[in-house]
């Protein structure tokens, strides 16, 4: 893992000290709320419905055991003993006191963490494939590049006051697990036929009230040019992006209004002016950062994985867990483990302090001290020996963490919704809970197969409903919660924005409506191998609309 250098240490310490002073001045009345609000937002502090919320950056979703234990410790001492992992691979605490904020940020700094650039109109925390450096299908590890972009974008003076927030995602596999086409900049690390690494660069994707799929500006950019190219994109955006209307200020609107060709020409012009100069990443620096992300010292293991094989034969619960929650690893005898934070009836993405401690312990003992946060609101142990999985599974059962539903219909993404968030129009978590209860039967879930269900409590789409195979958007209609269904969305390399099925459903109706959609799929699929999205793409919306609204 990356370790802070002197510069990182210094800016985090300076910012922590500066913000402590700002909090003191706010509490004494020296600063008004109007003066203080932009300062607290620059440090990840929001005021939500019930309390202050602190959003902590987890760069490209990577944590060490020590860091996860620190988060657990903060949850225990300053919050209500739990934290919420978000779709941006961050962690949010929901019940923090402003007066405690300086102490918390100082404690985070001890473990090389902070809350800088988790809010505001700047380049936000960079996200990446949560299986980076581990997945068998990966071409190259995207994390060194996510780290290089983090360093470049941290406190970048030119890009600290953009027209609107700016999100960058990076993947190193053709199978897109980082939803790069719905980011302001999406980067796919790839290799050309000469064996050189480079990036396909996507620009202008996003969700929110105007969902857009990004345009690919270039299919192969030499990797050392990535900062110059990103800089060129940001310069065009900073100059041309709209500042007159908050709802039209994201780069996706600029790309849409300029058109792909004109945007590409504008970026290429800026790029030509800065290419080959100071922003070219030097080869020794690429090598230095790469060294931080070297593969762990894999232990010797029997490639036949006898313990793993025997446990699957002996224990059907373990077999089902292994089938859903373990993904192929590039190292023989190893697997990538998804720890689901979606227990039936539980709030998606929440973990208690003791659950965080347990996962930190497991990572330390079995997982080369590494944990990932996925944008799907689960935790991942990227490097575990398959033969250790039965022991890990036993511990996860004790911790209420062994739900074998990765990628199934109950592995729901949901934003905090109206239970916590000041922006929300409707609740998300109770809908997620009721859907997961309705589909609790694991045999039924497995029969339904891969299905991504995503819920947002308002049009800002933190719950990624636009790219859910089944998406649910909560709206307020004359004081009542209503839920709109979208179908056929996808956040992967076949990115699509879901289509609105029709009129919304009341809170009482929504779970039944989801069941109707699922039953329609089960009835019409050609084979059990044809998953929901494939069936929807073949059938179109008509049979689903008929089942929902006509039948």
């Amino acid at each position, binding site marked *: 893992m990356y370790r802070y250098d002197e510069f990182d240490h210094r800016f985090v310490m300076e910012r922590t000290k500066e913000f402590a002073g700002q909090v003191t001045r706010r509490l004494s009345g020296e600063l008004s709320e109007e003066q203080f609000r932009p300062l607290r937002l620059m440090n990840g502090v929001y*005021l939500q419905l019930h309390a202050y919320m602190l959003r902590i950056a987890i760069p490209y979703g990577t944590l060490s055991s020590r860091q996860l234990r620190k988060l657990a410790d903060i949850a225990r001492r300053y919050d*209500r*003993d739990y934290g919420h992992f978000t779709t941006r691979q961050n962690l949010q605490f929901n019940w923090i*006191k402003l007066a405690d904020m300086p102490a918390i940020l100082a404690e985070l700094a001890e473990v090389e963490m902070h809350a800088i650039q988790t809010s505001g109109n700047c380049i936000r925390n960079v996200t990446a494939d949560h299986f980076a450096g581990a997945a068998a299908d990966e071409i190259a590890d995207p994390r060194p590049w996510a780290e290089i972009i983090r360093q470049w974008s941290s406190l970048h003076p030119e890009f600290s006051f953009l027209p609107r927030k700016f999100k960058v995602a990076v993947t190193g596999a053709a199978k897109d697990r980082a939803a790069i086409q719905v980011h302001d900049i999406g980067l796919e690390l790839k290799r050309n036929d000469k064996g050189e690494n480079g990036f396909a660069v996507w620009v202008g994707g996003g969700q929110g009230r105007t969902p857009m799929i990004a345009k690919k500006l270039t299919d192969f950019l030499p990797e050392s040019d990535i900062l110059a190219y990103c800089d060129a994109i940001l310069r065009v955006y900073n100059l041309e992006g709209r500042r007159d209307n908050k709802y039209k200020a994201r780069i996706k609107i600029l790309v849409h209004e300029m058109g792909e060709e004109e945007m590409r020409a504008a970026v290429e012009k800026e790029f030509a002016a800065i290419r080959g100069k100071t922003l070219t990443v030097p080869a020794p620096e690429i090598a230095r950062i790469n060294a931080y992300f070297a593969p762990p010292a894999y232990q010797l293991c029997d490639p036949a994985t006898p313990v793993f094989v025997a446990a699957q034969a002996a224990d059907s619960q373990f077999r089902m867990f292994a089938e859903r929650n373990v993904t192929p690893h590039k190292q023989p005898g190893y697997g990538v483990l998804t720890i689901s934070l979606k227990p039936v009836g539980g*709030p998606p993405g929440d973990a*208690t302090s003791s*659950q965080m401690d347990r996962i930190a312990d497991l990572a330390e003992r079995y997982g080369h001290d590494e944990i990932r946060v996925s944008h799907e609101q689960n935790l991942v142990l990227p490097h575990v020996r398959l033969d250790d999985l039965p022991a890990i599974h036993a511990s996860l059962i004790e911790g209420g963490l062994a739900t074998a539903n990765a990628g199934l219909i109950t592995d729901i993404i949901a934003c905090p919704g109206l239970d916590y968030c000041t922006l929300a129009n409707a609740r998300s978590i109770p809908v997620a809970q009721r859907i997961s209860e309705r589909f609790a039967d694991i045999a039924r879930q497995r029969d339904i197969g891969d299905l991504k269900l995503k819920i947002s409590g308002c049009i800002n789409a933190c719950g990624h409903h636009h790219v859910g195979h089944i998406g649910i958007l909560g709206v307020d209609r004359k*004081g009542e919660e209503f839920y709109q269904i979208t179908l056929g969305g996808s956040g992967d390399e076949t990115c699509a924005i879901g289509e609105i099925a029709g009129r919304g459903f009341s809170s009482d109706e929504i779970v039944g409506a989801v069941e109707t959609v699922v039953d329609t799929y089960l009835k019409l699929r050609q084979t059990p191998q044809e998953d929901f999205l494939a069936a929807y793409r073949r059938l179109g919306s008509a049979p689903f609309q008929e089942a929902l609204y006509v039948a």
Partner: protein
Amino acid sequence: MAKPARNFEAVVASANALASGAVVYRTAEGSWSPHFKDALIARSKSEAEALLAAADGDVKATLIVELALIEVALEEGVAPRPRSLRERIRAEGPTVPIPQDPQPVIRT
């Protein structure tokens, strides 16, 4: 917010405590309570204006932030409640339980 007297909706003054962020309500005594039941209910436009003006002093005194008048449903025989779901959630807390550790597995 306050409407014309003819259709006036009863309101209470609510805010977040500055230091803790906790939801609070203005009481008849001029203090702030975490409990909605303690809130002073303004039943006319002039009462609402007086309540807001008095409460606003505590914004300036840096005790509270996000001060607002919120509408209250008054029905015979039922305790007053905030009219909107959002305000009921602010008053009563999330409608979902706070995550708890699982009960220890009892092996028989």
